[in-house]
């Protein structure tokens, strides 16, 4: 089967903080409309990799290409405007702005064609937040706040959505609701990279898993294959995930 072209390519990325090698020779590619799970134990370098890809932290060496263009030195806000979007591990909404205004901030910057107000309304509708539009973040539930972050990330020209532990703190039902929203976005054509610790969820969501340990990629492949990989079981998944003999 012919492979889709890569929308995001991370090539030999290294990142050092003083004496700590946070990322070491990390390489992987993400194809159009793929859902890629980025997993690994705490301190493996997942969040650092997110920061490097989104442009908040420059890599010590290596390259990042987005739709074939080298964006390694591109400012973070320009990456967002070109469609490389993200959410945060800890919710970071603008507390003094309403839900609609939170989304509007991104729409005003990122909507190239068309009316940004329409885009805000559309993003809110997609995440079923229209009724919350005029509420402040402090007035809405945790799952809705997570969805506002996603709406802010997808509004405008979003081509790759990076979700950093967007299910943390949610109950199972709440997590299911958010997962359905995410998969719905993927069905509409969005490419998604997700960092997640809830393994059953990430196994069900992702079409491919990239496993990090000590800043290195130790596995990259379909979830079933990765789950059976003895190196991954040893490093992260543990015996519970060991396939039956």
């Amino acid at each position: 089967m012919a492979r889709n072209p890569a929308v995001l390519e991370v090539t030999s990325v290294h990142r050092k903080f003083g004496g700590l090698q946070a990322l070491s020779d990390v390489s992987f590619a993400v194809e159009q409309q793929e859902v890629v799970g980025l997993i690994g134990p705490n301190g493996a370098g997942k969040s650092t990799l997110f920061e490097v890809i989104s442009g908040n932290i420059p890599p010590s060496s290596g390259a990042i290409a987005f739709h074939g263009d080298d964006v390694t030195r591109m400012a973070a806000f320009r990456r967002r405007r070109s469609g490389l979007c993200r959410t945060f591990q800890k919710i970071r909404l603008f507390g003094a702005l309403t839900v609609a205004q939170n989304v509007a901030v991104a729409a005003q910057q990122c909507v190239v064609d068309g009316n940004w107000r329409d885009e805000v309304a559309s993003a809110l509708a997609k995440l079923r937040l229209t009724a919350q539009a005029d509420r402040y973040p402090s007035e809405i539930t945790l799952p809705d706040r997570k969805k506002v972050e996603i709406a802010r990330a997808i509004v405008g020209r979003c081509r790759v959505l990076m979700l950093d532990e967007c299910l943390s703190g949610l109950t199972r039902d709440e997590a299911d609701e958010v997962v359905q929203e995410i998969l719905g976005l993927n069905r509409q054509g969005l490419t998604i990279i997700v960092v997640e610790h809830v393994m059953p969820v990430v196994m069900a969501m992702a079409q491919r898993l990239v496993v990090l340990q000590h800043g290195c990629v130790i596995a990259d492949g379909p979830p079933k294959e990765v789950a059976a990989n003895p190196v991954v079981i040893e490093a992260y998944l543990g015996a519970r995930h060991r396939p039956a003999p």
Partner: protein
Amino acid sequence: MAGTIDSGAPVPAGLPGRAEFRQLGYGVALVALVACLPLLPFANSYLIGIVVRALIFIALGQAWNVIAGIGGQLSLGHGVFFGLGAYGTGLLFNDFGITPWVGAWLAAALAGAVAVVIGAITFRLRGIYFALATVVISLAFEKLARFYFALTGGDTGLAVNFRGTAPAVMQWREPEAFLWISLAVVLAFYAVTRWLLRGNFGLALQAVRDDEEAATSAGVNVYRTKLLALLLSAAMTALAGTLHLQFYLSIDPGTAFGLSQAIQIQLPALIGGLGTAGGPIIGGAIMILLSEGTNVASSRLGLDGVDVLAYGIVLLLIVLKAPVGILGYIKSKRLQRSGRAAPAGGGD
């Protein structure tokens, strides 16, 4: 304030609509009262002078509120821009005969240029570098103003060549004209603040204030946004500095660039409500009323010096009771009554 985006969602009860219309009514009545003050039978130059002082004070608070309240960048040295406005206008008039009507804009441009240089150096760094830089530059300008006696008049300061009542050079013997000019400036600054709170640039600026990294992830050019806000704030401060100079007809290094002036500039917004459009107006008006009230009371009672103490105590009580400012306090109470949680800050 409710959302400015037409989301099609129902408008939450008790927020805009009638309440906003009522606020507009109060505002128009207040403006009309101030504008017509000279026509009232009890008005005299002293009373009008107090109101002019209050309006200039409010304008300074509004200017500082743009960068600190809406932009979240703590400037501890806004006296620099105030001083540049006052000294710039005065020097252009005294030495080159340039009318303050034009000089005010040139001085505002100079203040904006200095602001861009300060911001360009400090806004790339995170932390308190901007606040520290403004203090240091403020102190440096004070020293320069004292040192270059031939240009600035040194410690004595700069006196404007007074020509009597001469509207062409923004000079009047009576304070009525200053009342109207200052009122127009306050109204213009109020409009700028409202625009910032509701417009595209203002939304980005508030996003930067709340969380720079999240703003970046929303596509906001944080550096440029902060720089533009500082430029605007500095130019507004310089315009208020021009008003101050034309009203008092003199300026000295301590009044212009001193730290006490920088702190005074911050108080209207802090007392009235940081990041709100009405806060600096309420805060500035309360402070001048308090200042005058305690001054008159202490003089009548023969308790000189007690006025400053009383003024300080009342300000302290306001800050303790309403740490988010008077408007912030009122807004949170109103939202609590309607069963809603208070937002993190800002608003109209």
